């Protein structure tokens, strides 16, 4: 036990060290390095349009990653987010065609509610019936996608059938940030605060680390996990609304395959797949990194046939780095304990 009062310099050094050791540092560093290298090779990478595009590209995946991270932290997974996004997106398209004067906030609410309802179905099965989330959400991935196909068929709704103001949400900026990106930031920051400060937020880490112990401790595990899936669904619904704003068309194939990108982003961002650790901020940076890498590779004119392989290498490296630093941290803790 060190009873000497720490000097202010030592205290500063300690807080700097603590910041550097946070889980987000590796992925944030990787992102900075990536941008720096790319900008060095192709300075246009940091031109205003390019930066705006990078932010917009990351927005939708970052929102999905935020929702996925709370699910994964609680030792679950939600593979159905792509299908939920598709249904929400098509619903938005349908609403604007059926009710051209519909107020945009109402469309947002509808998308989020649809997502929340679908997420509640997942949550009910996983939290209340207590069945493995990988199996359930694989099932709902199929069921929701089937519903999307049954509803939409070959119909697609185009951006011209939505009000210009709605599409402009993905174009107009405030202080240089596109509006939908600001929405994403609000979501990410509030979720980050919730998970790290709120009592019920911190419960998720306990549930992910040791569900049985969490139960014994008095944490309402079922309620928390149910909420996590509802949140993941709601955010997938929001992502669907933003998708309809940004892209040309919404239909039966909207959001197909997005789930693996989201899980990859979350894992790259330092959220352990076994639960119990990681942050929403980290997951968002992971999303930013993954969406930026493809733009980087194009800007640096890497052969298009090599791009996907490079993304794969990136994902693996991120996981390896994360694993190595986790091992080091565990060893250090062991060392500290034995020193006492």
């Amino acid at each position, binding site marked *: 036990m060190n009873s000497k009062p720490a000097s202010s310099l030592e205290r500063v050094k300690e807080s700097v060290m603590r910041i550097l050791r946070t889980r987000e540092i590796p992925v944030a560093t990787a992102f900075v390095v990536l941008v720096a290298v790319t900008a060095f090779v*192709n300075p*246009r*990478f940091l031109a*205003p*349009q*390019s930066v*705006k*595009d990078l932010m917009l*590209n990351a927005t939708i995946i970052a929102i999905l990653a935020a929702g996925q991270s709370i699910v994964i932290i609680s030792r679950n997974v939600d593979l159905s987010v792509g299908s939920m996004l598709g249904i929400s997106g098509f619903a938005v398209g349908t609403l604007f065609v059926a009710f051209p004067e519909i107020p945009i906030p109402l469309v947002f609410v509808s998308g989020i509610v649809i997502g929340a309802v679908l997420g509640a179905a997942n949550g009910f099965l996983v939290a209340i019936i207590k069945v493995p989330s990988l199996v359930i959400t694989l099932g709902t991935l199929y069921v929701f996608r089937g519903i999307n*196909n049954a509803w*939409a*068929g*070959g*119909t*697609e709704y*185009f*951006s*011209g059938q939505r009000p210009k103001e709605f*599409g402009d949400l*993905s*174009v107009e900026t405030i202080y240089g940030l596109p509006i939908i990106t600001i929405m994403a930031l609000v979501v990410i920051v509030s979720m980050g605060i919730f998970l790290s400060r709120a009592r019920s937020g911190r419960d998720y880490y306990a549930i992910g680390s040791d569900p049985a112990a969490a139960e014994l401790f008095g944490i309402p595990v079922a309620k928390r996990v149910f909420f996590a899936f509802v949140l993941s669904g709601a955010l997938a619904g929001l992502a669907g609304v933003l*998708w309809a704003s*940004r*892209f*040309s*068309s919404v*239909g*039966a*194939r*909207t959001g*197909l395959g997005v789930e693996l990108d989201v899980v990859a982003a979350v894992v790259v961002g330092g959220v352990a797949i076994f639960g119990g650790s990681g942050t929403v901020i980290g997951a968002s940076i992971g999303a930013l990194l993954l969406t930026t890498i*493809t*733009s980087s590779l*194009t*800007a640096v*004119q890497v052969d*298009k046939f090599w791009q996907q392989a490079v993304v794969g290498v990136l994902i693996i490296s991120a996981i390896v780095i994360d694993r190595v630093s986790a091992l080091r941290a565990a060893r250090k803790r062991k060392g500290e304990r034995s020193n006492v």
Partner: protein
Amino acid sequence: MSRASRQRKLSFKRAFSVIALSAAVSLTLGACASGTPEAPEGSADALSITYIPKNLNNPYTTVQLKGGKEGAAELGMTYLEVGALDAAADSQVPFIQTEVQNGTKIIVIAANDPTAVCPALEEARAGGAKVITFDSDAECRDLFINQVDEKEVALGQLRQLFDQIGGKGEIAILSATANAPNQNSWIKAMREEIASNPDYEWDVVAEVYGDDDDAKSFQEAQGLMQAHPNLKGIISPTTVGIAATARYLSTSEYKGKVALVGLGLPPQMKEFIKDGTVTAFALWDPSDVGYLAAHAGKALADGTITGAAGETFTAGRLGSYTIGENGRIIVGPLLEFNAENIDQYDYITF
């Protein structure tokens, strides 16, 4: 203890007998039925025609099938459509197999891959079916319904580009999937024309693939502008690609600075004509393709034609057609759209 084991033995015996019975029944049924020839059940009078598009949940496909339905109804044929929800090389094979087994006489297919569908299609033809490809050709078919001659498709788009940016500058091509036969034949014709025509001195700096996916095509368009800031024009001979590129250009600082031409669905492209992102684009009426295929199929099944070059037949409202070399039939000319006529083509929709 013994009572429990007796119960277990009983339930085991019961289950075993049920299984043995089921096995015997199903094997017998199989053996019995395999003896009989596969006479297709159902109406021998009404000819049936099955359409197998690239995939089902696709607006362009839906327009084509609309024409097919119309044609089949006109000719008193039973119209059937089957297909997968994804356009992979192997996805259509199970559906071709279904038609083989059901003894369908006319199969109309837009091949996802020129060779993967052939083993199954050959079996269909061996069983007496007539196979027509449309939109996207394969090797093993009796006729190929091509909407517009490949050269004309290429020339039309190049001409539209020339009208907007002249003959010099960097241009790029944003295609669909890397192995789509129709894409590759159009792009090949384009490159040939650029190489041979003295007016066209463009530098084709990139050819990228959007995989017929809206978001991916959007990102590819972004990438093009990133990598080639001096790009003057983009050619996108895919309805998904051109719409996604238009959406990107229209929401970015490149709007009006880069010319975009290609093949697009009028209802989808209308907003981009109106807001000036796109000056002109082209296509045809996809439903004509489906409609013609129905008539061609009937003519083949009736024996009116055999698929040889020079034969003629009539196709309802489209008039009469002569079969070209290698079983190819061209539906009609390229339709070009611009601000003046875009409003007239709202009917090209699903």
